[in-house]
């Protein structure tokens, strides 16, 4: 009986200790990063894997890609389509389907020319699946400032439903 009472008093004390822990956290500063007003530090984004991008060979929008198809073959999700250009090794088309990509780096590691890498675009937004099927050559030219950024397609609701 006395042991039960002592046990219960100890139990009540443990509840007080618990309250003091949460009470202390109540008063201590918050950990949240308020996203639109505040962003995480750049050093965290350095290693973040966003969608693929082509490594620029020059500032004229040229890429290092030699259209060898190694990346397309290595990809577990079949998300890369490279079409060889008519003249030379440069690709005519480099299509990349981000919806299928699992960010495993198989393509990056198998590329003999070092032509692709992961971008750090963490704040990417898409309104439809189409917007996630990227054209990496256009993206590269855009980053070089050769092509104006395409205006985001207006969300056409009727089309999306149909």
């Amino acid at each position: 009986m006395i042991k039960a009472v002592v046990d219960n008093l100890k139990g009540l004390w443990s509840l007080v200790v618990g309250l003091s822990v949460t009470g202390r956290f109540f008063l201590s500063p918050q950990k949240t990063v308020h996203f639109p007003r505040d962003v995480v530090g750049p050093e965290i984004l350095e290693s973040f894997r966003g969608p693929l991008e082509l490594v620029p060979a020059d500032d004229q929008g040229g890429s290092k890609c030699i259209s060898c198809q190694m990346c397309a073959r290595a990809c577990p999700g079949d998300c890369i389509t490279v079409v060889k250009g008519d003249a030379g090794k440069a690709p005519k088309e480099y299509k990349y389907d981000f919806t299928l990509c699992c960010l495993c780096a198989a393509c990056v590691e198998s590329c003999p020319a070092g032509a692709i890498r992961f971008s750090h675009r963490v704040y990417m937004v898409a309104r439809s699946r189409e917007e996630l099927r990227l054209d990496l050559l256009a993206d590269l030219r855009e980053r070089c400032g050769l092509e104006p950024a395409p205006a985001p397609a207006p969300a056409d609701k009727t089309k999306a439903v149909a």
Partner: protein
Amino acid sequence: MDLSIANFAQIIIACLLVIALMVGNAVVMVYVERKACGFIQRRPGPYEVGPRGILQAVCDSMKLLGKQIYVPGNIDWILYFLAPVLAFFPVLLLYLPIPFGRHLTAMNVDEGILLILAFSGLGVVSNILAGWASNNKYGILGAARAVSQAVAYEIPMIMALLAIVFLTGSLSLTEIVERQGSWPWQWNIVVQPLAFFIYLVSLVGETNRAPFDLPEAESELTAGFHTEYSGMGFALFFLSEYANMLLVSFVCAAFFLGGYKGPFMDGFWWMFIKAYAVMVFIVWIRWTFPRVRFDQLLNINWRWLLPLSILNLWVTAVIVRFI
């Protein structure tokens, strides 16, 4: 008490004020609860709607109003829709004898606490109806839990309050407050700390708040007796939960914490400050502790709170009688 027109009008006005208080309280408490929970968990809580998220509760209530009321199949229609209403309306009555000042009472009845205790039992009827009528197994389990819990926790609650009644010699809340002084050491909590503790525990049990929220235990019964309620049906349960919480906090303030009396200046603001302090404490323990198991919940009550409260009552009676 004479039932003159003036008296009747007074009660009507009081009822309207009480409804306003209940809704306002729910709005405030939603914000307070979510903010407190957020701060405890080191996040800001509601932040985007209005400055610092003040309008969040308004948005929530708008959402609840606008939601489709999804009615499950094979329910008992009358009871299903009666239950939320039954949960909400008896609470109105309970606010009438609460004193906010010496003469600021909706209905100054001599047996105020008796009225509150008698009608607060109605709340559980709505729980069992809700659980039973919604044709849901979780609902039935929740309703069964709600009943045994409410029955169990009402007894030590009454015993604890009875000790104060013995001391004061009156069932009127105004009288009980009047017998306490303005300063904390003149309050009943100093004379009756055990009764206060018992009341505080059974208050959490009575209002079905964590760690005693077994009728709606989320991780076990999804939402317990109100699993199948959506939209306004759920909102009424929600409203009555907070209204009940406020009520027991008012009673706690009146019985143990000196009611509307306080240092420097007496007045209804003290009543609100004290009641909301109790509410914040309830919120605080909700976000700190895990939930007890059902047999433990009843064990705490029958094996500890009840004998303790009887002992407390007996000692109080002896002291009052002979000293």
